[in-house]
């Protein structure tokens, strides 16, 4: 047992920390206010091989492990949570399933340019009436010769407005429930693929998401990812990894909030001394630091298991549940430490609260994580 990072993992941490300090932290507030997609930052993430961290080099990725990915996600999200989730979607929700379930031919077309960051991918599972309950989805794919005709819609698709391709989940056999779901790789320029305007959200404003509609969209059968009827397995396996990414994102947001609170509490004076010398403030900071460390250990535990090729559904769900709820608590306390300034858009504290809130919802709400965890606990 050891808790040390390897030299490579440390290098990635330093690289991402420097990148965040230089490119993200100075811009994150502006991007949030103007809802501006961080075009330049995403391009630079690609240059640093951070859009395919765990994809082998032969497929255009950095060839690193999932611990590196989690560390990188924490640092990037500490700089800008929106940039963090864009990175997470391309890595975890798009490249990961194509790498795991794709054929060699599919990898050449749908993985290599995406892992290199020349193109961006997204993940289409959620619908107006189906999210974590995947079998309820209404997007239908009907075979016609060697093609499938797809009709339906998806919503809240992060990176959707910018994506070049999507891992799209459809029903190919409604009677079969979860076993009737099939995943397709679909270029977004396919005729019949229609995108709505970007969603207006409370936070992660620079990471655009949108609804999308499919009207008699024809997709070749060879674009099925995995096997027909295997979509549920593709989705669940992908989310096990994705949850590590979101947990690491939450961790990054919490750290940003915490570190700003530590700094502010040393500058702001009340009753003749810096507020950090008051015990109430000290104790809040101590609790924040402890919870951040606890969350990080849960995140790294899940990443280590994934790297070993071991089952990690329980550990990913624990990391996601704890880190996301922790991030909201920590961001709220950090805002409190800032007092009135925390509520002002002149500082970042209020943005962290808004950004943290989504981590309890997407890629499986806290309630879904508790369903997964309790099923594991009661099985033991």
């Amino acid at each position, binding site marked *: *047992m*050891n*808790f*040390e*990072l*390897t030299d490579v*993992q440390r290098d990635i941490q330093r690289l991402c920390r420097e990148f965040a300090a230089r490119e993200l932290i100075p811009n994150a507030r502006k991007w949030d206010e103007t809802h501006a997609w961080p075009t330049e930052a995403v391009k630079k993430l690609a240059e640093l091989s951070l859009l395919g961290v765990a994809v082998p080099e032969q497929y255009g990725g950095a060839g690193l492990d999932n*611990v590196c990915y989690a560390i990188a996600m924490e640092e990037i999200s500490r700089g800008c949570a929106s940039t963090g989730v864009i990175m997470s979607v391309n890595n975890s929700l798009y490249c990961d399933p194509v790498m795991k379930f794709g054929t060699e031919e599919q990898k050449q077309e749908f993985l290599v340019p995406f892992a290199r960051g020349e193109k961006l991918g997204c993940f289409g599972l959620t619908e107006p009436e189906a999210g974590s309950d995947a079998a309820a989805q209404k997007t239908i794919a009907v075979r016609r010769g060697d093609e499938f005709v797809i009709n339906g819609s998806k919503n809240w698709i992060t990176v959707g407005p910018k994506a070049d391709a999507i891992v799209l989940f459809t029903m190919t056999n409604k009677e079969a429930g979860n076993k009737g779901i099939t995943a397709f790789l679909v270029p977004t320029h396919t005729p019949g693929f229609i995108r709505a305007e970007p969603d207006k959200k409370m936070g992660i404003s620079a990471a655009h998401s949108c609804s999308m509609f499919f009207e008699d969209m024809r997709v070749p059968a060879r674009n099925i990812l995995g096997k027909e009827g295997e979509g549920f397995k593709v989705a669940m396996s992908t989310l096990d990894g994705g949850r590590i990414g979101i947990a690491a994102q939450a961790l990054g947001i919490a750290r940003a909030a915490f*570190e700003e609170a*530590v*700094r502010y509490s*040393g500058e702001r004076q009340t009753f003749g001394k810096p507020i*950090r010398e008051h*015990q109430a403030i*000290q*104790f809040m*900071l*101590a*609790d924040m*630091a*402890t*919870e951040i*460390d*606890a*969350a990080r*250990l*849960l995140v*790294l*535990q899940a990443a*280590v298991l994934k790297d070993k090729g071991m089952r990690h559904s329980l*550990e990913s769900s*624990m990391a996601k*549940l*704890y880190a996301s709820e922790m991030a909201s608590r920590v961001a709220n306390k950090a805002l409190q430490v800032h007092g009135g300034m925390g509520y002002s858009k002149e500082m970042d504290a209020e943005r962290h609260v808004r950004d943290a809130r989504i981590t309890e919802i997407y890629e499986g709400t806290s*309630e879904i*994580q*508790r*369903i997964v*965890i*309790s*099923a*594991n*606990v*009661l099985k*033991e």
Partner: protein
Amino acid sequence: MNLELSETQTLIRDTARKFAREKIAPRARALEREERFPTELFKELAEVGLLGVNIPARYGGAEAGVVAYALAMMEIAAADASTSVAMSVTNMCAELIHAFGTEAQREKFVTRLTSGEAVVGSFALSEPHAGSDPGALSTSAVRKGDKWVLNGSKQWITSGAYAGVMVVWARTSPAGNKGLSCFIVEGGTQGLIIGRHEDKMGLRSSNTVSLTFEDCEIPEDQLLGKEGEGFKLAMVALDGGRIGIASQACGVARAALEASVRYTKDRKAFNQPVADFQAPRFMMADMKVQLSAAELLTLRAAHMKEQGRPFTREASMAKLYASEMANRVCDKAVQLHGGYGYIDEFPVERYFRDARVQTIYEGTSEVQRMVIAREIFKLFS
């Protein structure tokens, strides 16, 4: 980062688990009802190496490291928190004497602790008006010829009536923290008076007493460390001790969760097992997540200590989080058992009472938060 246990760590954990299940768990309830200190158990714990887990073999220890110690504590505490606290204090005393003692002190006293010959060890720091603030200690030690003469009183001393070897803090000069020294005192020494056994809410088969020193004469060579070095020794011991209590909290909480899983699968309400309702399932999910987080924090602190790196912040985080977690988890366990959670036919009300002291002893949660905040400000200064 690698979370797999080594062979030695696995061996110690499995040994402790087997011992806990076979020898301790079946008697835990009876021991607590009778408030009986299980003297005979400690000889057996010593035989399987659990009274000196992180002590070299040449002094009778298992030489298995700090992570193995934490794992062993979790297992013993899952069966009985009272037994585990005596085990924790004994290991702590052995480690302290090993770290700061002379060769003669090591050979004499560490060996007696690890072999069970001393039964257990005791750690006598707290006084009626000084605990986490040792600078306020008033027990005095005055040199007289080749002896030290101790006068004063100590409070909340775990295993005090049974310990063959104690480490005792006393003031050798008035100069605050720098005036403290540490002594090894043998049980039964003339002038050492064992006070009334405290009637406690929990840990009822653990012995807790006050001690009074009345012209208690200690041989000169039982000064541990240097004169005036007592504060440093106390801080070093407590950093390690916090890992022990954090482990204890993890063990008790795990037992509470396991009992809850068993009970809710068995008990039916509205024609289905309680475990099939979402509300109890979600409670158990939260218990599991917090338990895992606490275990990781505890093992991380243990690992850092094992590596010889500074671990003050990590030990305080582990102690703070694990002890508060254990209280939340045991409270939920009582709730999940309904009325049965409140009666002593089921173990969870004992877990609840045993967990309560964990946020208090070896530094309250408030002291841990002071330590953590101080360490944070060092990092960000």
